[in-house]
């Protein structure tokens, strides 16, 4: 009888009644993704000797099209980036050149930050990219979160697996750990200052920390964001780089 009770208790712990992870991710996608978006952001890059802030305006359509223009500081002003599928073009006003990057170059750091070009431009729905499973429940800054494990189901996912801490009430991630196929932790993202924007919850500050680099990481701050705004098609053409 004693053994039966222990077995029943163990089984009840093992099969806790966690909600369906896919359902959670759908709600997260509803907050974080949109058909289009226009974002004004500041990226605070903490270097060993100094910190600097890079201001940009970005346009995104789905996860395949993205266009960014750098507004400050002076060294960066006028630099533009266009991403179409897995190709990226960078326009440099100082040399009047359009340079194409592809393949592993997209995994390089953007302007010395802890973000890669792929991080900057990835806006694909989590449910499209990952199989998920809720593996626990924790609290972050007093807020209850689901701990969700995500394993990629598509070949071209930037990270093979992720671990996300999802706010149980607002359905936004508050923390993420991004892993390589080998299981090596690559980046840690801390999301904060969750605000209601156009009726959805959205974290307006994200700290990306490349664990393979020294330093405090990079703060990516959303100054302004518009969801599902109409974006003229010419924005996502190479001609717009030189305008």
């Amino acid at each position, binding site marked *: 009888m004693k053994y039966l009770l222990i077995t029943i208790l163990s089984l009840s712990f093992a099969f806790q009644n966690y909600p369906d992870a896919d359902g959670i991710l759908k709600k997260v996608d509803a907050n974080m993704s949109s058909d289009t978006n226009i974002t004004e952001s500041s990226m605070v890059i903490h270097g060993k000797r100094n910190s600097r802030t890079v201001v940009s305006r970005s346009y995104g359509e789905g996860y395949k099209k993205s266009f960014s223009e750098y507004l400050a500081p002076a060294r960066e002003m006028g630099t533009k980036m266009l991403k179409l599928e897995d190709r990226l073009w*960078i326009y440099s006003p100082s040399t009047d050149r359009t*340079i194409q990057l592809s393949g592993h170059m997209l995994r390089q750091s953007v302007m010395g930050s802890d973000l890669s070009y792929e991080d900057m431009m990835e806006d694909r729905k989590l449910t499209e990219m990952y199989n998920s499973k809720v593996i626990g429940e924790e609290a972050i800054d007093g807020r209850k979160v689901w701990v969700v494990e995500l394993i990629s189901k598509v070949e071209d996912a930037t990270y093979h697996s992720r671990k996300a801490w999802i706010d149980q009430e607002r359905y936004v991630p508050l923390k993420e750990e991004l892993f390589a196929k080998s299981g090596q932790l690559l980046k840690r993202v801390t999301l904060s200052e969750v605000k209601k924007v156009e009726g959805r919850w959205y974290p307006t500050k994200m700290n990306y920390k490349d664990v393979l680099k020294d330093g405090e990481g990079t703060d990516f701050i959303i100054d302004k964001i518009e969801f599902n705004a109409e974006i003229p098609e010419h924005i996502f053409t190479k001609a717009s780089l030189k305008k």
Partner: protein
Amino acid sequence: MIKFLFKGILRDKSRSVLPITIVILGVTLTIVLSGYLRGVMGDMTDQSARFQTGHVKIVTKAYEEAMDQMPIDLAILGVDSLLESLQKQYPNLQWVKRTNFGGLIDVPDANGETKGQGPAAGMALELFDPTSNEIERMNILSSIVVGKIPSKPGEAIIGQEFADKLKVKIGDEITYVGSTMNGSMSFKSFIVSGTIRFGSSALDKGAIIIDISDAQEMLDLEDGSTEILGFLNDGVYVHEKAEALKNDFNSKADTNDEFAPTMLTLKEQNNLGSYLDMVDVYSGLFVGIFVFAMSLVLWNTGLLGGLRRYQEFGIRLALGESKGRIYRNIIMEAVLIGTIGSVIGTTIGVGITLYWQQTGIDISAYLQNSTMMMPSVLRSKFTAQLLYIGFIPGLFAMVIGNMLSGIGIYKRETAILFKELEV
């Protein structure tokens, strides 16, 4: 006496041909291998000093910890005033600033869009300052395949293989894409003024060489460089001198500032110290093994010779010659045979060394994917040491071998000599 022994050696070939051949072989091998090892290591050290390490190098402490990644954000700032004080403090060295940088080289098509690109390993030198001697030190003039050395800002020379791969010709424009020391994106276009082939695959693959002033502007390195290299004025690396210099310089450095400059000797960089120590160990080991093996072989040869000359020694003993005198004769013979073998072996060994010093052995086919800084033609190096490094062991091996085998003479008993000789 020597004349008598010498005649014996010449007339009785079976007494001398085999030992002389063995000594020649051993001495030749020792000299050729020692000369080759020293040549290769000397070339590697010299090439490393000129291209990468200097005889001493100054970097920031933070840069030193991540030197393999060439982190330009950890470069030395205020480099000109530091150079000035170095020139005053240590006038026996020539000091130059250099910056290594990585990035992409992009080649545009007619519309200014990417036609081809490849990863670049950049090096910025004081090309426009003739007093820096960087052009001679890096052997740039004779390494230029086509074109000329940059003479004004905005010009660059690139590796010949790199130029072939990207289909770039002299006068074409290329664009460097990388990061500044602050992490900003850096774009700068250059006109290709020449192509270069250093003969080192690691350098030739993605090389771009520009003047330091262009790099300072391109990488936001105003009054900065990643490294300061010091070269002893006589051009030869002497570790004791470099070590003393390093200790003196580093004793004055601020230990709490991670951006304070720190000095490294050539031996402390790129594992060169362990390579150089390894060569010394292997040279010593090789000579030791040679002496031991030769002694065994020559002992054996001496024993065979002793057996063959059993009767001769018996008669000489019977005639009243002392055992000590016969033993000394054998040793004298060994000295003569060892000397002949060692002289011939040294001559052949030095000859081969000089030939390989001139022609070298081309290993470029094996270095196509190598990132190690080493010359693609390996040459031997003749030094005065080669004149005795084989000679002395050759002589000793012969003498030791015969001393061992000659001991048998003392075991002969005079009382039974006639009985033995009757047989």
